[in-house]
């Protein structure tokens, strides 16, 4: 009997499950005509956040389904321009040429922001290694070759650094992360600007490269002596050790949500919201940060789409910002969110 009872429970719960799913399927089928679907694609960096927004949003707005595919910034922009998607997303704001291709019918919305951290794997060295501006540029140019280089030990008198060769880890694919990182390095160092330059895909003078944030992360983890650049949320999630970087005012700042928010607060957003943060000036600003943009149309061919997109973006700018911090992104400062919301309200 004791065996028989749980058996009954299983079958009855399975039956219940079947029934409820059946009912749910039937009811969703009957509602199908009322659902508006909006499709977007683009950057992989904010993809976890947008997917979370989409699923949370669906719970409160059952008549709108949001699909997002993290195909990469470049592909996201071109799919948006050719109207394959209803909205796009990119880590790099669209260029004037790209805006012209879209017939000017584009609104670039800073949706969230992130910082890029230098994560390292040095045997026996915990988080918080201080790297000065000249040092981290020297490392990525291949001038600083060993971890016990005087350039590094000078700023870290309390840390015993091993004589391990430095392995620089970069991105092998084109990436907004690379664009932001090289943009910062080029702004700080004219030497870097001439030798490497900035862009989504550059030639690094040293080191190895992995595909995507995950590729870089695994290379850092498996290579003693490695240092590489990844998104903050990614580094936190994978428990990487992160360096404190010297900012423009000469302070060493650890990558945290607070230091990232400080950076955003000091940014002056222009009318088109296209602001590149190459070298923030505030005393406590973390030096490498970026907005990431949602690309929507100023006017949509159908009112349904316009309403749906507006509702989704508004959700992201309000309720969604709380989730952002949870996932390792930096929430937009209130002033920015309000300014952006005003523009979103104008979408037709």
């Amino acid at each position, binding site marked *: 009997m004791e065996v028989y009872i749980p058996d009954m429970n299983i079958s009855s719960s399975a039956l219940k499950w079947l029934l409820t799913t059946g009912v749910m399927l039937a009811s969703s089928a009957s509602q199908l005509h009322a659902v508006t679907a909006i499709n977007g694609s683009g950057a992989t960096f904010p993809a976890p956040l947008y997917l979370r927004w989409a699923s949370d949003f669906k719970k409160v707005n059952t008549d709108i389904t949001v699909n997002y595919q993290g195909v990469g910034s*470049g592909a996201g922009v071109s799919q948006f321009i050719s109207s394959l998607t209803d909205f796009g997303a990119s880590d790099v704001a669209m260029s004037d040429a790209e805006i012209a291709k879209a017939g000017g019918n584009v609104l670039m919305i800073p949706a969230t922001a992130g910082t890029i951290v230098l994560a390292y794997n040095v045997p026996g060295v915990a988080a918080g290694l201080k790297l000065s501006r000249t040092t981290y540029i020297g490392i990525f140019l291949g001038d600083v*070759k060993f971890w016990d280089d005087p350039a590094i030990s000078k700023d870290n008198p309390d840390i015993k650094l091993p004589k391990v060769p430095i392995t620089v880890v970069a991105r092998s*694919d084109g990436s907004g992360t690379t664009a932001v990182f090289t943009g910062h390095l080029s702004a700080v160092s004219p030497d870097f600007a001439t030798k490497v330059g900035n*862009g989504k*895909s550059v*030639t690094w003078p040293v080191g*190895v490269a992995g595909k995507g944030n995950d590729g870089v992360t695994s290379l850092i983890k498996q290579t003693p002596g490695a240092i590489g650049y990844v998104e903050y949320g990614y580094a936190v999630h994978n428990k990487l050790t992160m360096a404190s970087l010297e900012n423009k005012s000469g302070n060493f700042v650890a990558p945290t949500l607070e230091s990232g928010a400080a950076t955003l607060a000091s940014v002056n957003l222009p009318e088109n919201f296209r602001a590149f943060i190459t070298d923030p000036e505030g005393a406590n600003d973390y030096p490498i940060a970026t907005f990431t943009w949602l690309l929507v149309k100023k006017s949509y061919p159908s009112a349904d789409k316009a309403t749906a997109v507006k509702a989704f973006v508004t959700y992201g700018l309000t309720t969604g910002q709380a989730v952002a911090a949870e996932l390792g992104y930096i929430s937009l400062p209130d002033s920015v969110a309000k300014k952006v919301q005003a523009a979103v309200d104008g979408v037709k």
Partner: protein
Amino acid sequence: MGGNTTQVSMGTPVTQEYRSRLDLFRIMCLLASSLCVVLLVFIVSEIFIKALPAIEKFGFGFITGVQWSPNREVFGVLPVLIGTATSSLLALLLALPLGLAIALFLSEDFLPLGVRQAIRFVIELLAAIPSVVYGLWGIFVVIPLVQTYGAVLAEKLGFFPIFQGPAYGNSLLTASLVLALMVLPTITAISRGALVAVPKTLREGSYALGATRWETILSVILPTAAPGIVAASILAFGRAMGETMAVAMLIGNSQRLSWSLLSPSNTLSALLANQFAEADGIQVNALMYAAALLVVMTLGVNMIGEAVLRRTQRATAGLR
């Protein structure tokens, strides 16, 4: 006579009727095989059409250029071409002695047939392992080995340019080691086929003249099977050149010229896999140009391999 005539007259109309009808099976086979040819032509021409803007813009300088900087629209694939050739050659160099030894072992009667069949099956099963699994295995097994022993090698023999440090885990050597394992089944299977096809009469003749087993293997069987073994090597080389996933995971993806085997490198296929998704503008055309080069190289190598293999099969068939 009469019986024969009836047979013929009974058979002929049936055959004629049959022949005059549409042979559906033949048509389907013809369609399927011509579809393959059309598909190949379509793929190759599509690649060349997409590559055309880059071919016009960069010309031959694309092949001799040493810098690949999409942000500056500078595209040169020489380091990648060298990486493709060296990683495949090195893999072949490592796999050929091993594969040939296995093939010999499996074609001679050192072990009972059942055991040999089992070993053969296991080795051919290596070909069934997905590329990404080889890549993961490389990350967890080969990379730590190369890191440890590579550092020692660089320290002791670093004065040779090919062992110059610093030793990277993700390097040309790592990729070549894993590639060697990946092409092993190709080499073993085709070489074994060639060795088995050596006519018994030759072997018996050799024994009859008083040769030992080793003398027979080295001076009769191997030379006879040599063209088949060459074909096996060429086909394995082609396979190594086209291999993508495992290589992209292990080679370090760097487009820099370096002499050292312990340095990261890149191959054409890995470059394409890494950069295609986020490429735009002329970079797409440049990547297509690189793809066209890869197609020309692999098609060329495979065609040579097939030609050699066919010639061998004809030659050994004549000896029987």
